């Protein structure tokens, strides 16, 4: 096997044991790694029992996986997955973390955590040897405090090398908040999916990994070296603006030109506040530019610092998603305000997108008089950083109104609708349990396909959108390949170069058809698990839709009046089902399963008819 080791390290937290599991090359060839491999492993393990698997029970495995491209293709991502407590399916969440590299340097392609610890613990893996250690001294911590203390703990407790990377959770994950992320390196998050809550349910505070070996051998080292150098140069050339501004450029580009940025819970998608742009952030908050992840020539991050009410807030740019969701979506249009809230989300271990979305939902309900001051305990106002920070903490600690909001937008809307006896789902900007990423579809200029989110097997995830043609870089098959490879979407140039790279690493000699089939296979299996769902949420064709708000016309900006059209979405949905080989209810057909080599999962379809 080339590019991968063919084995995973499985840790049983309940029993305190670990073992190596062999994965045949055929499985890598069919699913690559990361998101695809996780989907396969979970489908095979649970099959029809998937519906009864509670994502927050010890039975839900947490998978930290790499892929054949990990460590060879510029940039680094670690795939984080399991059954999502948001979508009740599989979300292939990724986070930039050197844990991916260290796992491969330990002789493993990934780590699977099963069961749960009785007391707070951390997992230390050194060259494949696993230790489950007491984490009570760092429980409750997040952000910089956690990083500093955990560095010292690793040194004292297990004599770890100072170059030992780790992923961790903040207080939100500990409290099983459904919008909690698995964090890395202060400002990095595997946000989509809510896997911070899964880790918290296992009482695992952190996972630190160190490996001393080399990465697995590749099929054609010499041409790979040449390819690596030329890829670095090409990526750097193409991403010049990104390097200077990072995704923060979106605060102006997406907000002002494309009119696709969430403003006040998506009641608008446009703003013209010039200070709330990459330049504003550069002048007010950036102290270090550039900041890159392992092996990355793009360096889209910048270190930002803001001082507010006598406290220091430190984070990355913040990136566009954070600036949008913890800025404009909450009516905050100052770089400083966005840095304070982003840094706070990092510290609490919250996904900024999911949390900024549910906060916007809450502020809108408050404004409309649906949530009262008595219920919240204080006033909620757009743009008021103080009350917003308070609300965010209440969510992370499940206090007061935070208890409901900690369930995420979909579940909070369901709970509050029941309680109030009115349908509040029209204020919930989510798809199948996943709050929509900060890229609107109404103007048609940013994410131009009306089915981007509606048909995604990862709901509102903006990094896995559905689209036509179904075998192209516009398709969800493509995104699933990136998450399974596992590569960063900002360092990828195009499909043909990625395929060439994959073949040089693995020696598989895949053709473009086989390449996209991998994606189709992953999406199909994810779709089956999504439709099985459970235990507290189930989805059907009815849920293959946009948030109601996206059918309302944009009230401001250059695309004022623009909205999604119901008939068009319905039409595209039919076409998409047909092209994906799904029936009129959106269920993959037996034939489709056969075509992509998933026959063994055919019996699971019976649960869907």
């Amino acid at each position, binding site marked *: 096997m080339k590019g991968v080791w063919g084995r995973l390290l499985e840790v049983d937290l309940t029993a305190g044991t670990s073992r190596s599991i062999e994965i045949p090359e055929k499985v890598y060839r069919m699913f690559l790694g990361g998101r695809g491999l996780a989907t396969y492993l979970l489908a095979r393990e649970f099959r029809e029992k998937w519906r009864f698997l509670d994502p927050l029970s010890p039975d839900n495995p947490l998978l930290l996986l790499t892929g054949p491209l990990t460590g060879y293709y510029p940039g680094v991502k670690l795939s984080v997955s399991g059954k999502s407590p948001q979508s009740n399916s599989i979300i292939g969440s990724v986070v930039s973390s050197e844990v991916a590299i260290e796992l491969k340097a330990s002789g493993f392609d990934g780590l699977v955590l099963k069961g749960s610890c009785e007391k707070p613990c951390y997992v230390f893996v050194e060259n494949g040897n696993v230790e489950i250690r007491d984490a009570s001294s760092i429980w409750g911590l997040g952000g910089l405090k956690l990083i500093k203390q955990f560095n010292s703990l690793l040194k004292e407790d297990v004599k770890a090398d100072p170059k030992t990377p780790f992923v961790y959770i903040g207080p939100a994950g500990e409290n099983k908040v459904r919008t909690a992320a698995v964090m890395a390196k202060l400002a990095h998050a595997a946000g989509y999916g809510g896997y911070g809550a899964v880790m918290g349910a296992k009482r695992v505070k952190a996972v630190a990994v160190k490996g001393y070996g080399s990465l697995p051998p590749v099929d054609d080292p010499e041409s790979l070296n040449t390819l690596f150098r030329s890829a670095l140069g090409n990526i750097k050339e193409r991403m010049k603006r990104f390097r200077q501004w990072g995704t923060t450029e979106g605060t102006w580009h997406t907000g002002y030109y494309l009119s696709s940025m969430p403003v006040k819970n998506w009641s608008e998608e446009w703003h013209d506040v010039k200070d709330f742009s990459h330049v504003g952030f550069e002048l007010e908050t950036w102290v270090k530019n550039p900041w890159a992840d392992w*092996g990355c020539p793009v360096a889209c991050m910048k270190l930002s610092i803001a001082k507010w009410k006598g406290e220091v807030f430190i984070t990355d740019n913040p990136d566009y998603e954070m600036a949008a969701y913890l800025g404009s979506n909450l009516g905050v249009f100052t770089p400083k305000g966005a840095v304070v809230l982003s840094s706070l989300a990092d510290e609490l271990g919250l996904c900024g997108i999911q949390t900024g979305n549910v906060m916007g939902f809450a502020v809108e309900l408050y404004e409309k008089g649906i949530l009262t001051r008595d219920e919240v305990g204080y006033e909620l106002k757009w743009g008021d950083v103080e009350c917003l920070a308070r609300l965010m903490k209440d969510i992370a600690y499940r206090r007061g109104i935070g208890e409901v909001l900690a369930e995420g937008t979909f579940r909070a809307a369901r709970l509050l609708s029941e309680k109030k006896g009115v349908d509040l789902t029209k204020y919930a900007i989510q798809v199948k349990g996943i709050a929509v990423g900060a890229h609107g579809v109404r103007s048609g200029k940013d994410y131009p396909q009306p089915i981007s989110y509606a048909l995604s097997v990862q709901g509102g995830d903006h990094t896995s959108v559905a689209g036509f043609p179904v075998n192209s870089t516009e398709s969800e098959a493509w995104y699933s390949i990136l998450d399974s490879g596992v590569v960063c979407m900002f360092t990828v140039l195009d499909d043909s170069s990625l395929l060439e790279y994959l073949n040089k690493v693995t020696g598989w000699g895949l053709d473009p058809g086989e390449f996209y089939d991998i994606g189709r296979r992953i999406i199909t299996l994810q779709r089956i698990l999504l439709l099985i769902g459970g235990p507290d949420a189930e989805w059907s064709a009815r849920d293959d839709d946009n948030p109601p708000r996206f059918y309302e016309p944009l009230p401001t900006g250059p695309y004022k009046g623009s909205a999604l059209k119901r008939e068009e979405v319905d039409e595209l949905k039919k076409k998409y089902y047909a092209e994906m080989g799904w029936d009129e209810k959106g269920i993959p057909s037996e034939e489709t399963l056969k075509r992509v080599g998933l026959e063994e999962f055919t019996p699971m379809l019976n649960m869907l008819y």
Partner: protein
Amino acid sequence: MPIWILRDFSKCSSCKLCEIACSLKHEGVVWPEASRIRIYELIPGLPVISTCVQCDDYPCVSSCPFQALSTGEHGQVLVDENKCTLCGTCVYACPGKIPRIVRGKLGVIICDLCNGEPECVKICGEMGYHALQLVNKPDGEIVKNYLVSPEDASLKLLAKAIGEE
């Protein structure tokens, strides 16, 4: 003419491409632990660059009981894998604990300046970071001032970034 790698912590993006390039050059594979240069990112975003500084008096060389170390024309330390017993004496003799014993390697590893054409400097420059630059070796002990502990240096960089005393 002895050469030297000038380092700039503030320009370092912590991309670790230098580590990748160094291991590719010397080992032919991506093997971060076998890199002769190390980037310590104990505090995210504030990396500390660590590699041999080619001390004026080369305490490592004189400490080796087996004469496995010598110096080359560029001022680099050379390791003779046939003589090195991995005894670790040089590690303790080095004020920065720079020589490293890596599982799978037959001798300690120390930066050899890629025999005059440092790969790490090249890739860092190609990527436009310029945190590593090639200069003539400065005279005297001044170079040793870079042999800082990554832990302490990280905390100093942090204090500076957030404007603390």
